């Protein structure tokens, strides 16, 4: 059964069988506006919590998306790189960014649940 977590940096993390799928929240895509470029990590890349993993660029500005936990990149969403507007139209669905194998599932306890995240964005 999958559980979904959130970060204060406006990422969502869906965990299933020790693998986390990461993307930006709908609130984040709305704040950024129309995305025009997504730079994905390398498959096999080791990420530590807080590392910049992805660059998303809107018409106006560039933003980093950080690794929410430690782990190794197992899959990236090429569809999002090919068509960055997919992240706008489906931030929490087809617009996911990368999947990573968790190094330490205990780190998940430090993330927010949906109610906690909604409280942050008001």
């Amino acid at each position, binding site marked *: 059964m999958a559980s979904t977590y959130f970060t204060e*940096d*406006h*990422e969502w993390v869906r965990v299933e069988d020790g693998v986390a799928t990461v993307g*930006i929240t709908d609130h*984040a895509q709305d*704040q*950024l*506006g*129309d995305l*025009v*470029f997504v*730079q994905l990590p390398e498959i096999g890349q080791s990420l530590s919590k807080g590392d910049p993993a992805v*660059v*998303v*660029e*809107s*018409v*106006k*500005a*560039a*933003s*980093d*998306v*950080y690794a929410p936990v430690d782990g190794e990149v197992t899959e990236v969403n090429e569809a999002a790189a090919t068509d960055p507007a997919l992240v706008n139209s489906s931030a929490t669905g087809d617009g996911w960014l990368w999947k990573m194998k968790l190094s330490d599932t205990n780190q998940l306890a430090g993330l927010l649940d949906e109610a906690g995240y909604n409280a942050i964005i008001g």
Partner: protein
Amino acid sequence: MGADENNNTENLKSLPLEDLHKAANARFGGFAGWSMPITYPLGVMKEHLHTRELAGLFDISHMQLFDVSGAGAAALLSRACPLDAASLPVGQSKYTFFLDEKAGILDDLIVTRLGEDRFMVVANAGNAAADEAHLRAVAKGYDCRIDALDRVFLAIQGPEAADVLHTAGLAGTELPFMNGFEPRPGWFMSRSGYTGEDGFEIGLPEADARELVTTLLADERVEWVGLAARDSLRLEAGLCLHGHDITPEIDPVDAGLTWAIPKPVREKAGFIGAKALLDKITKGPTRKRVGLKPDSRQPVRSDSILVDINGNAVGVVTSGGFGPSAGFPVAMGYIGKDFAPIGSHVFAEVRGNRIALHVHSLPFTPHRYHKG
């Protein structure tokens, strides 16, 4: 996620029509001391494309109108700007500058002759206070008065702009580009803009503006367009943003803007900065303002350093983003003469990576002005 952009909106001035932008669900951000509508629910991409296809309505009331009048008004403006104001036909607008003694660009302006002894000067928001102080200082000894006008300033831009205004019953849609007049008391209207499209800029009292906005938005061809699309539109059109592409450290020669300074004005050399400018024209530019097109889909942003293949610094990006009409990232910057020819290959340093770019002709999208 961490954004580069700072959207702090504290201590900012509010537009007179802010309530209308709020009602239109605009997202606000700070620019030049003003809380400005950055985007509307349509989004920057569609707002941009809508302007090129039909008509975009912009609130540019952050910009400042100065009414300069009196027997000495033409002489003052010919001193303050590299301009022969006395020979400007009534109704004609002219793109010009305030220069300092080193010919650095203090601001870029549009001056329109409204009558024998009256001119309208349109200045940038960020420089409005400095411009006013500068103009008043230069004006000492000239028989003239300078009034900073309290107006709402709207722009309507796009291929349908003229027909929209005509349908709304406004006079002035027969004006050729870069001409202006006063259609009603307290109004100033010119055929001009900052998008590369045909269009108009209208300064008017707030009450009249509320009525006009209601009328214009009732036309289904018209959408509010925010500052984000205003920036991408002007960048595609190769138009300079003061504070980025032109600054007091940059002169009109390096900026490639000497076309705005007529030959007789240079010969007469009566304007502030004339000596430095003429010396620079003789010597030639030290660097050139060019268009830049990244080879990949990744935009480059202002302040990125440009390097050659060996990593030697050869220039800097002054504006950069994505061009929705161009369909690729677009940028503008300054580059050493050796790299200025179209097609020259350089790199921008972005977060430790090098992004390959080619020097590209300006504008990225052709101008579609109404030449009359």
